[in-house]
């Protein structure tokens, strides 16, 4: 039985096994449509974006050479922050997902891409693409959920340690790129005495250290030194850009799986999962952020988290186009398409972090009132009279 089925309202109780397979067929069809229409326009989009990002980064770094002047500091820091966000989100994250592999351009390919982040691409791809996207929101399997240090569901036993989880979360947000590197390394698990000696772990740790060294040297040594008299202000500019980038990416990513209304799953529930059930889990385990095109761009289109989780390898610039179709499927199958504005979703995610830092039932009102869910339970698929709970496969 899934965690969600233990809740008062089981959100999938009304779906038969057949419904869920039909859902899979409909989603596969949407996927095929996008694959068939990928082409020149999409290629021009990613190439243009990469060019813009690199020009912005170089330009901002050049401006920062004179960062002693406040306007130069401001413009350079803003530009560098935006460049770093674009590089990590809309470009790096998505390229490493293989969203652009179909172009067969070795320069824009998941196997060759390296990003401006503490975690080496290879390790991030393993923990993110293979673990998080496969075991989305499965407690105990998906480290993205609370990164192994937080309580993310009522079903997880409360311990006093969790009282500090709002603090952990804030620290993690500030140093997010290092947090990612640490959990890609599974540091918590691997720092036990026995594991620490494992040559495989040591090799990976060495890779991370090499990467961090190069990153730190770039942002905190070479670039400031090149700025001559502006060295201290350039250093602060780079620190600021990295901090803002970390806070931003952390917020966006927290909105993907943390807001109220997002479901979590138990390990048992995914045994023998069918394709339709996998899709269903992605649908219930993700939340979107609504907003402008600019927001979607800066969020790396992870604001279409639901669409991204259904189709992690479709080009991100197409998520917006399929979102209405996906929302329609949610409505027709009587499921909740969780979405909300950025401030609402961030607040919702934080309130969950805070609520779960306390023992269950401590803040009853919050539990009962999901903050940011848009609920469309209108059902146009006529249900058969008797339904078996489906996600409880096996």
């Amino acid at each position: 039985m899934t965690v969600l089925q233990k809740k008062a309202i089981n959100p999938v109780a009304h779906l038969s096994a057949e419904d869920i397979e039909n859902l899979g067929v409909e989603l596969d069809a949407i996927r095929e449509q996008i694959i068939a229409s990928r082409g020149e326009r999409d290629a021009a989009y990613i190439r243009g974006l990469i060019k813009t990002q690199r020009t912005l980064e170089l330009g901002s770094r050049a401006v920062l050479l004179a960062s002693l002047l406040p306007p130069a500091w401001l413009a350079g820091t803003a530009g560098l922050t935006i460049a770093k966000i674009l590089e990590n989100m809309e470009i790096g994250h998505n390229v490493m997902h293989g969203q652009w592999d179909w172009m067969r351009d070795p320069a824009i390919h998941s196997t060759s891409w390296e990003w401006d982040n503490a975690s080496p691409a290879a390790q991030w791809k393993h923990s993110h693409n293979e673990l998080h996207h496969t075991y989305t929101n499965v407690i105990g399997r998906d480290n993205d959920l609370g990164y192994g240090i937080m309580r993310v569901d009522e079903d997880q036993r409360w311990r006093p340690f969790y009282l500090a989880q709002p603090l952990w979360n804030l620290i993690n947000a500030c140093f997010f790129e290092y947090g990612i590197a640490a959990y890609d390394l599974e540091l918590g698990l691997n720092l036990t005495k026995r594991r620490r000696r494992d040559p495989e772990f040591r090799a990976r740790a060495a890779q991370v250290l090499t990467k961090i060294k190069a990153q730190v040297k770039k942002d905190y040594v070479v670039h400031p030194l090149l700025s001559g008299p502006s060295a201290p202000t350039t250093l602060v500019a780079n620190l600021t850009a990295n901090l803002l980038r970390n806070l931003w990416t952390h917020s966006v990513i927290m909105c993907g799986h943390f807001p109220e209304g997002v479901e979590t799953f138990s390990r048992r529930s995914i045994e023998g999962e069918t394709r339709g059930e996998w899709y269903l889990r992605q649908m219930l385990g993700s939340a979107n952020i609504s907003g402008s095109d600019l927001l979607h761009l800066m969020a790396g289109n992870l604001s279409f988290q639901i669409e991204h989780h259904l189709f992690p390898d479709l080009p991100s610039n197409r998520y917006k186009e399929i979102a209405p179709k996906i929302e329609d499927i949610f409505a027709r199958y009587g499921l909740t398409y969780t979405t909300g504005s950025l401030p609402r979703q961030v607040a919702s995610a934080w309130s969950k972090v805070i609520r779960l830092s306390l023992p269950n039932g401590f803040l009853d009102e919050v539990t009962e009132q999901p903050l940011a869910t848009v609920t469309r339970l209108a059902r146009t698929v006529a249900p058969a009279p008797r339904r078996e709970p489906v996600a409880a496969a096996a």
Partner: protein
Amino acid sequence: MLTTMTVTTPGRGPLRRLGGHVRRVADAVATPLLPQDYLDLIAPLHGSVLRGRIESVHPETRDAVTLVIRPGRGWVEHRPGQYIRIGVDVDGVRLWRAYSLTSPPATGATVSITVKAIADGVVSSHLVRRARPGMIVGLDPPTGDFTLPLRRPAKLLFITAGSGITPVMGMLRSHLDELDDVIHVHAAPRREDVIFGGELRALARAGRLELIEHHDDTDGLLSTERLSALVPDLREREAWACGPAGLLATLESFYDTAGIADRLHTERFRPTILATGAGGSVTFTRQGTTVQGPGDVPLLSVGEGAGVLMPSGCRMGICFGCVVPLAEGTVRDLRSGALTHAAPGDNVQIQTCISAAAGPCRIDL
């Protein structure tokens, strides 16, 4: 060549050390990318990989064009008869194909290729219809051994058909002055389909070579009987032939039977697929992708279709540019039907352009 270069390299000493420092700083700032990745944005011909810019496009026949290309940094001079590979984006997808160089080497800084659009041909149709001056294409340096020996033979015979004229045109434009006795038999459906028809006929009129045009529409397919009749001293001539697989196969068996197989040099544009069978699932282990590999489709195409970065070259079994390790499974050589088997861990090197899956396979890519 190499020694003079080392001796005259400017900037040994202080200048070179300075260059080294600049490069190290540039590397440190560009990380995790390379400085070249930024350079690529403004100077694609001087970036990290060899590229070329199309300078001009000249129609040859109704379905063939000549592209004059300016190669960027990393180009090496070719020998006439060799081919290059060019990479173009068709519908956003980078595709590589081989084309023979039709220009002589050292014609300033440009080279040319001549492309004939084939029915349903993705790259050839794209180039013939959409190539424009200014377009940037990927390039691979010249390669191939369909070239004349340094000691030029006294009597030569060129046998070409259709777009098979291209490597030979490269040779004629470069070497004709050094060749005394050349007969060129060229087959095309009709007179107006002959690529470089005007130039060839002018050379013939000037007495530089003997041109024998064969028009399939009126003369029927070129047979060895007809060839022997047209070129009575065929056995005395060193021959270079390029054209459709059928013509080349006929020529090869003819020369073989006559016991003069070593006189014939051939160039193929595509492999002859003879043996097919049941396919299997193909897993690209590093990419973590599994797709169905039909028994008659080269693994190269299967991988490319799945977005895997497949190394490739001539795409027809001669250059070994497509060799990758088969970690496990069985593949079939599409030319001969021969099966190659790899037990787990064997990592047998296979040519993906002429191998198809013959059961489940795992490829280490």
